């Protein structure tokens, strides 16, 4: 009985995964190999050409999504690491206040926040309208409907998911370790580079994982902030599912996206070293 206890305790989560992950994934995998249409029905034909067709038509959008997701992740890392560092080491007694402020915008819905950006960045809005009025910007300057707006929106929307894990990792760094490094004649930079940074890498890994995946798959930012050539793969999947009722193509695209992300993450994990990854995963 005792040997079984851990398995019994794990049972609910296995059932959860089974019902809500494995079954839908299997059904989706099945649909991705079918042919037909929504009116006459779809039938299993093991049509692997769904994948090649979908990729042939939408490789541009898929690559663009990975690029945007990657750019946004790098931007979040550049912005987020110093913030996490500052809160962890300089935050003092107000740490929780800063963290709360960081999370505050998340009480508002994702879509609404993105629409607010649209409002703020509008050509003649509060920001650019004023600057144009002062003659600081050319009349036809605009940010909306550009790549910059979409990547910026992604960066803004997912930033806390980068900061929090890094913060957690940095918070755990024992200040005495840094002192020890300095006792051993490490400069501040050297102490950071050889002690703090490696210790925080699991947090960075978790942060990248939690931001790169949803940023790449996100359809909202491209729809609200993008222009004529900023369509991301999430928009395509949405259109294929809901407008065209082309379930096979949509499923094939979803699986392709998932596969590409998994491969990317695997390579990233290898580059970073498996130990750190396991440590991060165990948290």
């Amino acid at each position, binding site marked *: 009985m005792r040997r079984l206890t851990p398995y019994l305790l794990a049972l609910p989560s296995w059932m959860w995964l089974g019902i809500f992950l494995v079954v839908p994934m299997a059904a989706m995998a099945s649909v991705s190999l079918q042919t037909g249409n929504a*009116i006459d029905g779809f039938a299993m034909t093991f049509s692997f050409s769904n994948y090649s067709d979908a990729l042939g038509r939408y490789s541009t959008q898929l690559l663009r999504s990975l690029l945007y997701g990657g750019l946004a992740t790098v931007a979040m890392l550049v912005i987020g690491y110093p913030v996490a560092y500052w809160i962890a080491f300089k935050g003092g007694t107000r740490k929780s206040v800063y963290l709360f402020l960081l999370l505050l915008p998340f009480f508002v819905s994702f879509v609404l926040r993105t629409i607010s950006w649209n409002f703020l960045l509008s050509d003649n809005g509060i920001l650019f309208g004023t600057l144009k009025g002062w003659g600081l910007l050319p009349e036809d300057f605009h940010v909306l409907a550009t790549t910059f707006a979409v990547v910026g929106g992604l960066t803004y929307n997912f930033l806390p998911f980068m900061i929090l894990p890094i913060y957690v990792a940095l918070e755990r760094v024992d200040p005495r370790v840094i002192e020890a490094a300095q006792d051993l004649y490490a400069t501040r930079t050297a102490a950071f580079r050889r002690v703090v940074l490696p210790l925080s890498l699991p947090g960075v890994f978790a942060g990248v994982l939690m931001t790169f995946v949803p940023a790449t798959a996100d359809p909202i930012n491209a729809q609200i902030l993008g222009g004529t050539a900023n369509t991301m793969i999430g928009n395509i999947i949405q259109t294929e599912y809901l407008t065209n009722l082309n379930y096979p193509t949509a499923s094939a695209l979803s699986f392709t996206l998932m596969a590409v992300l998994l491969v990317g993450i695997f390579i990233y994990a290898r580059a970073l070293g498996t130990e750190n990854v396991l440590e991060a995963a165990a948290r």
Partner: protein
Amino acid sequence: MPRSRRDFFRVTGFSAAGLALAACGVQGQKAAPPKADAVKDYWAKQTKHGKVVFANWPEYMPEDQAPLKKFQQATGISYEYKEVIQENAEFFGKADPVLRAGQPLGYDIVVMTNGVQLQHMIDLGYATPLDHAQLPNFEANAGQKYKERAYDPGNKYTVPYTSGVTGIAYNTKYVDDDITSIEALFDPKYKGRVGMMGDAQEIGNFAMFALGIDPEKSTEADWKKAGEKLKAQRDDGIVRKYYDQSYIDAVAKGDVWLSMAWSGDVFQRQLAGEPVKFVVPEEGGTIWTDNMLIPKGAANPVDALMLMDYLYQPVVAAELDEFIQYVTPVPAVQDLLREKAKTAKGKDKKALEDMVDSPLMFPSEADYAKLRSYTPLTTQQEQVFNPIFQSITQA
């Protein structure tokens, strides 16, 4: 350890389950048109339940829900009113699996625009055929145009809720010219300042108007030509963005200067004092209709019919239209609003007079002559039509 029989079964059992999953297709539901007798039998069995659930689009009912309250007082039928429909495709995408599985949607009336999704609803047997014996107000008061619609001849499944026109809106603060032609949307002068709609039907229609093609009679070759025209427009950088409902904010803010637009949106902005104008282009515009239908498996079909019919009383239709400000299917509304304007005072009087005279709410015969409906498409045609235009809007 040698592999035991049980292991073997376990492994094959798993793969059998996998195969079973792989074999399960998504069933088609294409329904033959119901026989008249069957429809009669169906309605003969239904009774009033004293309750109705109405699913509609936002801003399609006054906030105080007065028309519905009066309906409750008049008939004793209580109502639930839900603004759950934002987009036809999205709504259909969500409803389809539920109705396909034979489960009720939970609504007794839903409102859908004529177009591919409504066609799917009818083709798949998701719409309950209506009993016209129970729609006397509709018979008496609906305009003739709203009884002769290509997408639902004889109003078998739907009755109109409201209609609107797709035309061009422009911001007079930035555009000095009087826009009359669809060519303005293709004019390099407005590079980067033109908004187009993301919907394949809407954008396809407009490109066909520009080419002098009647969308209702268009062929695959016409769609391709229209696609080429739109592609050139995009590649020349004329289009700023392919919009959904958010185009109207963009026009009002000046992010785009002119855009494809829906009449009611523009009219509401004009009343709010914003510098936007609406035109039906001389080449043509689209008229669409949002229709009420009773989804398959609805719990209270009789009550739903009663509500539908109630809304066709001119007084009720007038009250609704005063708020919605689109085209009402009840022509008598114009006179009722004119009467009301006579006794009203100040700002209300002005607003009512504007409404009565507005070609956006009461298009003239000349306006109607320029208006065309969506292209009716079969599923096979749709699989050609959609990619042509989506490859432009979702590049």
